[in-house]
């Protein structure tokens, strides 16, 4: 399939929401809350201890405090807490299992009154030992067992989960293994073997808008819910029906403008608690997490810990991969989601390893429960793979690009899981970033303490086939179009791209199309915006809906004028008719006028649109065998390559990215400028977690750097200057994507850290074993190297 550039698809259509955002007219959840009248404000009391027993919880003074309307604790009767998203599970059985877990929720007439009442809660803790890191939790006898009930419950899950036959620790709560069968023999044929351990830090999405939910309580008990969460149908409405038994006709979920998600809003942590309070007190409730609570109480992202052994021939051909990788998923109870497989999928995308054996697991700790975040585990795991490949190349004296090209999976090749790669643009991505940063030319040194170096890395990211999307096209009787969608719009511009697809298929001027988005009483089902699925899944649904609408229009026009639909084509507002006295008809003239004498029961009627509907769901994945393999474990893969030039200060250890090129294979881009924006934003975010972002804990196990002053998200200064930033699109059309599009937003975050790591090696001769590559870590390695040399 060649690259498609149409009238709208493939063009840099301006964002449909830009006007309201630049004028301040766009209303976000935080603004909707200000406009909501007669609301109570709910505030959370969170645990300051990572692990403790609550020995006293006396609410009597708080209940009587001025303005207090309701209080909820983990003892609230009739609640199936274990079905809740992990970060919303309030302290159960008088035990808190992470610092930031909610102990009580207080709703009062004003926020200050809620905070005052919280101070009147008489609470005492008995501090218990906690585990914060992988190495403490993986012990056979850890000082804290996070979920003692694991394995003893009847767990209902719709995700395939592997059995854990032998747990090395009671905090191992998920497992996934893969074995192509002959790793040990293959490893024996290697000329070079590198065996290393890697780990990564823990991060928070830190969207600029903190989580907020408003539940308006209607007189008949129906709730109108407005939040900056995701997935009005798939996550919120269906989720809350399941968790709280709310009837589908008693809940309406709407989505105002959204101040960022990055996947982290996938769990309805705010909505479930807000609606619980609203239904309990029969009042409208506003519930917001403060910026601090966004760190302690909203989801984190899981570190990946790897022990990796890779063997290669001296010409660079990789022959074997033997890899242990663990996902540290925080204080999850009743885990049915994390198994290690997401991190393990880092081995699926890019390379032919020859033989592969992967042993992966998920472990719990007394830290903020993890949830989805841009990259879904592969930035953490591919870091290990890429760093080892870079080291093998260096040791063998092979150019970094050649090493990768030699082992790349090409279209039709099978990966270690047994899947055939359906589409990959990785080779072009690698070559273009290599050229852009001139990786083959060493950096120019300026003689100062800042030493420069370059590095390059590949990446892939899995797309999970996450359910269905639906779209409705209403072709109105005045030839305007209304597009009904329930996709998430977290800033990526998906809605604009979807509108472009509709305009392209309908051949309709894009100004004629308006979008109604994300109102569960008005717009059709969509799961959510995650795993870069929206362009692909909802895009296909829009295409189908538009095609359905066109088919219906052909029928209706044909019927109206007595021509068989086979001789009617629809182009925008016109019908092109063959075998008729008039070659072109403006379709709106065929709608019967609103006049009491002339309205009928059939056909095109003024005021009633022609309705096209589309449903799209990717093919299901297969359950894998005992060897962890099957022909379809993920839906498709998106790819990226990154080349970076860094400078490292030999005296302070600081790492600065001074130049980068990022190339993405996103399939055919629907809107290249929006894709560029995702590339630049994604790399910037990855620079953050590659060199600066991490959780640091106080002695109680609470995140000490729980604000944007101390949790170091990158500012404009951490981005290279514009002339040193290159975003390149290298599409390989996806056969099943709309106009060949895949989806994007994630793959570009994955190769940044290993590219930086290799660049640091070329700058100062040290190899990191982890990210964030903080100044302290890098300086320590620089000093160790100096001492070893002396």
């Amino acid at each position: 399939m060649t690259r498609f550039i149409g009238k709208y698809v493939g063009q840099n259509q301006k964002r449909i929401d830009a006007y309201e955002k630049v004028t301040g007219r766009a209303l976000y959840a935080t603004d909707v809350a200000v406009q909501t009248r007669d609301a109570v404000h709910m505030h959370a009391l969170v645990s300051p201890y990572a692990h403790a027993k609550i020995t006293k919880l006396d609410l009597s003074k708080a209940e009587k405090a001025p303005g207090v309307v309701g209080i909820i604790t983990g003892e609230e009767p009739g609640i199936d807490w274990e079905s809740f998203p992990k970060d919303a599970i309030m302290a159960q059985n008088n035990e808190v299992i992470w610092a930031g877990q909610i102990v009580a929720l207080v709703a009062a007439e004003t926020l200050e009154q809620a905070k005052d009442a919280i101070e009147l809660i008489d609470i005492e803790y008995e501090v218990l030992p906690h585990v914060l890191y992988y190495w403490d939790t993986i012990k056979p006898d850890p000082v804290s067992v996070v979920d003692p009930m694991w394995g003893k419950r009847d767990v209902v899950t719709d995700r395939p989960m592997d059995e854990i036959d032998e747990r090395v620790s009671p905090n191992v709560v998920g497992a996934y293994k893969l074995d192509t069968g002959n790793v040990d023999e293959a490893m024996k044929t290697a000329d070079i073997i590198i065996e290393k351990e890697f780990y990564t830090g823990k991060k928070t999405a830190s969207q600029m808008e903190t989580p907020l939910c408003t539940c308006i309580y209607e007189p008949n008990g129906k709730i109108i819910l407005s939040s900056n969460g995701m997935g009005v149908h798939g996550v919120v409405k269906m989720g809350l029906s399941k968790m709280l038994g709310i009837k589908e006709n008693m809940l309406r979920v709407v989505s105002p403008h959204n101040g960022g998600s990055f996947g982290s809003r996938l769990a309805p942590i705010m909505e479930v608690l807000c609606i619980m309070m609203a239904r309990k007190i029969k009042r409208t409730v506003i519930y917001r997490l403060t910026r601090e609570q966004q760190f302690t109480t909203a989801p984190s992202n899981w570190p990946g810990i790897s022990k990796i052994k890779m063997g290669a021939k001296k010409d660079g051909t990789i022959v074997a991969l033997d890899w242990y990788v663990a996902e540290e998923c925080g204080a999850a109870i009743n885990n049915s989601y994390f198994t290690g497989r997401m991190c393990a999928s880092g081995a699926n995308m890019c390379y032919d390893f020859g033989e592969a054996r992967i042993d992966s697991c998920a472990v719990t700790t007394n830290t903020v429960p993890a949830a989805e975040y841009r990259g879904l585990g592969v930035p953490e795991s591919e870091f290990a793979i890429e760093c080892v490949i870079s080291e093998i190349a260096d040791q063998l004296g092979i150019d970094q690009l050649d090493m990768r090209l030699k082992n790349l999976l090409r279209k039709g090749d099978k990966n270690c899981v047994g899947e055939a790669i359906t589409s990959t643009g990785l080779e072009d991505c690698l070559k273009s970033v290599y050229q852009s940063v001139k990786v083959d030319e060493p950096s120019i040194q300026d003689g100062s303490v800042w030493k420069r170096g370059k590095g390059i890395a590949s990446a892939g990211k899995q797309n999970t086939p996450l359910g269905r999307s639906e779209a409705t096209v209403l072709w109105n009787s005045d030839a305007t179009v209304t597009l009904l969608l329930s996709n998430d719009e977290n800033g990526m511009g998906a809605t604009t791209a979807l509108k472009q697809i509709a305009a392209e298929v309908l051949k309709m001027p894009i100004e004629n199309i308006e979008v109604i988005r994300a109102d569960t009483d008005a717009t059709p089902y969509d799961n959510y915006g995650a795993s870069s699925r929206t362009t692909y899944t909802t895009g296909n649904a829009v295409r189908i809906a538009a095609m359905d609408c066109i088919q219906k229009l052909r029928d209706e026009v044909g019927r109206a004028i007595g021509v068989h639909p086979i001789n009617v084509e629809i182009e925008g507002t016109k019908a092109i008719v063959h075998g008729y006295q008039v070659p072109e008809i403006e379709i709106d003239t065929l709608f019967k006028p609103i006049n009491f004498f002339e309205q009928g029961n059939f056909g095109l009627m003024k005021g009633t649109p022609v309705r096209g509907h589309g449903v799209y769901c990717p093919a299901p994945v297969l359950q894998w065998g005992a060897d962890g393999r099957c022909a379809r474990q993920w839906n498709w893969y998106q790819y990226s390559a990154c080349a970076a030039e860094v400078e490292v200060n030999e005296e302070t250890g600081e790492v600065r990215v001074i130049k980068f090129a990022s190339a993405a294979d996103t399939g055919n881009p629907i809107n290249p400028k929006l894709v560029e924006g995702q590339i630049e934003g994604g790399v910037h975010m990855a620079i953050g977690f590659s060199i600066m972002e991490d959780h640091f804990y106080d002695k109680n196990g609470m995140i000490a750097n729980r604000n944007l002053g101390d949790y170091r998200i990158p500012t404009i200064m951490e981005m290279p200057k514009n002339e040193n930033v290159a975003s390149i699109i290298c599409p390989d059309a996806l056969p099943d994507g709309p106009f060949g599009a895949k989806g994007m937003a994630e793959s570009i975050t994955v190769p940044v850290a290993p590219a930086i790591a290799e660049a640091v090696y070329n700058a100062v001769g040290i190899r990191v074993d982890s990210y964030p590559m903080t100044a302290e870590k890098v300086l320590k390695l620089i000093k160790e190297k100096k001492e070893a040399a002396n």
Partner: protein
Amino acid sequence: MRFEKYCQPTTTSECVSLLKTYGSEARMVAGGTDLVPKLKSRAVRVKAVIGLEKIAEAKQIIINEKGLELGALVTLRTVSKSSEIKAKWPALSEAAGHVSSDQIRNIATIGGNVCNASPSADALQGLIVYDAIVNIVGENGTRKVPIVEFFVGPGKTVLEGGEFVISFTVPTPKENSGATYKKFALRGDTDISIVGVGSNIALDADGKVASAIISFAAVAPTPIRSTEAESLIMGKQLTDELIDEAAELIGNNCSPITDHRATKEYRVEMIKVWAKNALKDALARTK
């Protein structure tokens, strides 16, 4: 955040009397960039907040042959951009210019920075390197305190009940002297300093050190000077070797803490690196 009353005294004596009336139940506000977040988080709780915006002397900038009279309410923006202050007291302008971002500096004040008394504060280091005097108004009139003696602990100063800071007196720098302030943080000015080093070197006719100030941010409970290092280099040629020796001495004699911004080991390393840089820079500026 809640308090009962916002007061805007129009004279210094009115301010003193308000402070005496409310005691620890009132706090002064200048730019608000430190106090307001603390009030919001309830780390500080008061009945009254007192703003000095109606007191003209608090905003004055007077430069004469003796030096600079800098009102407590002069913004960090003004201190960092004033060409007269930059010309004679460049390290003060630089130190003020290292605080956070434009938005903060546009309302934050030099007096607020000093009275907030954070051990990591940058702007006040610019006063320390020039040996400034703090002018305090109280019920018994004005008293003066050398800047480095003003701080007694994290967030704590020598101010007694009924007292507030009205201005700073910054003497004209000596002949043949150069001063600098170096801030070190990972996200540049955005971050609170991991370490900060200020230095002022004056040379005699032979090019030897006639006087020295070496001061530090973020390595002790208060902003401090290293009197041992200052004595070490007095009367000597400030060679690279002497600078190295001074930096080692400083590093070995200080005891910073480990917190979520940096470990104490790293801070000690950075003190040595940045003490060297500051001394070299101050020396270069003596020309």
